[in-house]
């Protein structure tokens, strides 16, 4: 029932858009009908994320390299073909307007400013390099190596940084994210995640 409803809504929303693979119904329940994410429960935006990144995360969920009970169970049920079809579908979706992130996180201008500094420059005192070094100009992502952060939900980003920090997530290359996250404190995390959430993901810098 849920599947049919979701499909109908999607078709109604944009008839020009590629039809979602049938398995997307499962995704839509949490990640939104347009892959826009969900503030409640910190479900990440998938729309416009690179297919390579999405495919790798699904494989990591399935293998346990990325530990998440819900996503692990779902990803294990996908074969190679379905997985790559889903990844390609969400990568093809236009990036929706940001959810109400600034209201959700109630970030101050000073916080966003600090986040901006961490994103483009880093912090020598903490030996943290700029996030954009890997995540691309304005956090727009680098297709084969690092996910887009711009317009991502602050709650999701903060939850992930905390996981990297505490060893709950380690499916990157070279333990880079745990190195970086371990040097950030709570205030840094609130700042940098609210900054990226405040960016409009639909207009990333060219790269």
């Amino acid at each position, binding site marked *: 029932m849920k599947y049919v409803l979701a499909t109908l809504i999607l078709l109604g929303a944009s008839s020009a858009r590629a039809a979602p693979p049938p398995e997307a119904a499962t995704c839509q329940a949490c990640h939104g009908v347009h892959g826009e994410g969900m503030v409640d429960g910190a479900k990440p935006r998938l729309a416009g994320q690179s297919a390579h990144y999405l495919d790798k995360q699904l494989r990591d969920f399935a293998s346990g390299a990325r530990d998440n009970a819900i996503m692990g169970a779902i990803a294990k049920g996908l074969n190679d073909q379905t997985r790559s079809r889903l990844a390609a579908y969400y990568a093809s979706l236009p990036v929706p307007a940001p959810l109400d992130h600034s209201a959700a996180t109630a970030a101050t201008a000073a916080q966003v400013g600090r986040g901006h500094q961490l994103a483009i420059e*880093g*912090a020598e005192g903490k030996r943290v*390099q700029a996030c954009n070094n890997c995540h691309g100009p304005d956090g727009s992502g680098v297709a084969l190596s690092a996910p887009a952060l711009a317009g991502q939900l602050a709650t999701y980003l903060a939850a992930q940084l905390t996981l990297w920090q505490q060893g709950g997530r380690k499916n990157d*290359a*070279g333990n880079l994210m*745990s*190195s970086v996250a371990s040097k950030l404190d709570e205030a840094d995390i609130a700042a940098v995640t609210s900054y990226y959430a405040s960016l409009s993901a639909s207009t990333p810098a060219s790269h």
Partner: protein
Amino acid sequence: MDGGTYTSIRKFRHPSAEGVTVAQRLKEVDVVVIGVGMVGSILAKELAAAGYKVVGLERGATRFTVPEFQSPGIHDELRFDVRKALMQDNTREPVTFRNHSSETGLPIRRWESFLPGTGLGGSMVHWNGQTFRFQANDFELATRTRERYGKGFLDPDLTLQDWGVTYDELEPHYDRFEYLLGTSGKAGNLKGQIQPGGDPHESPRSRDYPTPPQKEHYSGALFRKAATSLGHHPFPQPSSNLSQPYTNPEGLKMNTCVFCGFCERYACEHYAKSTPQTFILPVLLANSNFELRTGCQVQRINLDSSKKRATGVTYIDNAGRELEQPASLVITSLFAINNIRMLLLSGIGKPYDPVTGKGVVGRNYAYQTMSTVASFFDEDVIINPFMASGASGTMINDFAGDNFDHSGLGFVGGAFIGAVNTNGRPIQYHPTPPGTPTWGKGWKDAVVKHYNHTVMFSLHGSSVSQKQNYADLDPTYKDAWGQPLLRITFDFPKNDLKMAEYVTARGVEIGKAMGAKQVVGSPRKGPYTTQQYQTTHNTGGTVMGNDPSTSVVNRYLQSWDVPNVFVIGASAYPQNASWNPTGTLGALTYWVADALKSKYLKSPGHLVSP
């Protein structure tokens, strides 16, 4: 060309230049360090931690990973690669060069063949991270060559000599340096036990590298297979672009290298390449016994009337003021060629005279003999050269140093051969086979065709010292402060050209064994040119040894003539070996730190009687 004076810049000099006033004299300190690069920052840290008041004088600017080295600015190939933004400013302070003493030296106005850095952290900020030890044989080259091949083996023009220090003496210091840097590699000889996968030719090491080797790129995998099939012994190049997160003994954390391919000529944005900024400077700068002064151009080391004791240094700061910094101990830790110049400008040690062969300062200037092999594949072999670090190669030492029999070959030395793809940067990296047009559509088509399907080998060869090659002060050209420039007189010794020919032929064999469609060997040919990049491994000129008539400093890098001056750099190498010089310089730095702390500072004076 005119005389190279800089009248307009001279105007900002302190009135003392006209003899009106004297330099302002500052409060005396225990130690002044000239040049805060790798050597300067390590030694300053050791001495400041031991309780001595240390001032570090750096001519360049203060700079750190954040904000100076961050992306996207740091990946500006035009700025850093082509225009050499991190290098010594040769509009103010060039070097003159000639091939032979019969010629007139001319200033190098645009760096190409070698790239001396400037600024906090020195040349190490823009290095590739290739971190080698020399072999036991290298430190006793003259003696061992005579023993193995007989007295008449060497060309009489060569001035090879032993270092006065042995590998066994340096081993603990190599070890300390590698653990400071976090170097990624695989041991080949642990306390005499050969280790599979490492370099079986290396001299014994007391323990393995602090971190495992970096990942092997595809060109390295092709090289490994081919070299093994020919009976050689491939191993992963030791890299100070780290393979995993690492906390060094100073408590500083470094990150994993991301293979961005912007090491050499650039600074690392990720705290992943070992440089003074990542491995020592935060600790040094936090020590209140140390004071860093940047923008300070040291003019000379001052001597007392006996000329046997240094009283400190005189420098000109960024405001044009001439200042005198008195100190009990002076350490010159400049890039090799600048160490030579500092001694010549200060009148320390007898300048070398190539006619009589007498004198020592400037003698035994040597370099590195670089050759290449390019292997061109069909388009189904995908190399992805841009996924690289400056030291993520796979290589062999079977034709390096004295690891093969030189009988009947007519030369000493050798080269490591490696698939060392350090980058695939768009402006500078475009391998094309011989016969390709140098511009236009034909060139562009060839670049597109070969960019992703070519494996480049580096053949990194030793460099012998010989009578004709040396450095002195230029009689004509001066720097922006009115001081004579250094003049280098150098051409490749016949010994090294023969070596390059021989080893390049071995490299071509490996290229063919890889199955390449076309293999092109380019052995180094003379004459030496300053207009083509080769390597920034300038060595010699203030060489170490046990005989004051053939060395500038003793085995502890202490001046024979002025014992409160220590001269530390690759300028101490009596000749250069088959590997990059940095690892050995790091070992020498800790060797000197030990001698200073345990011997000299307790009882200042000659550590070896002249």
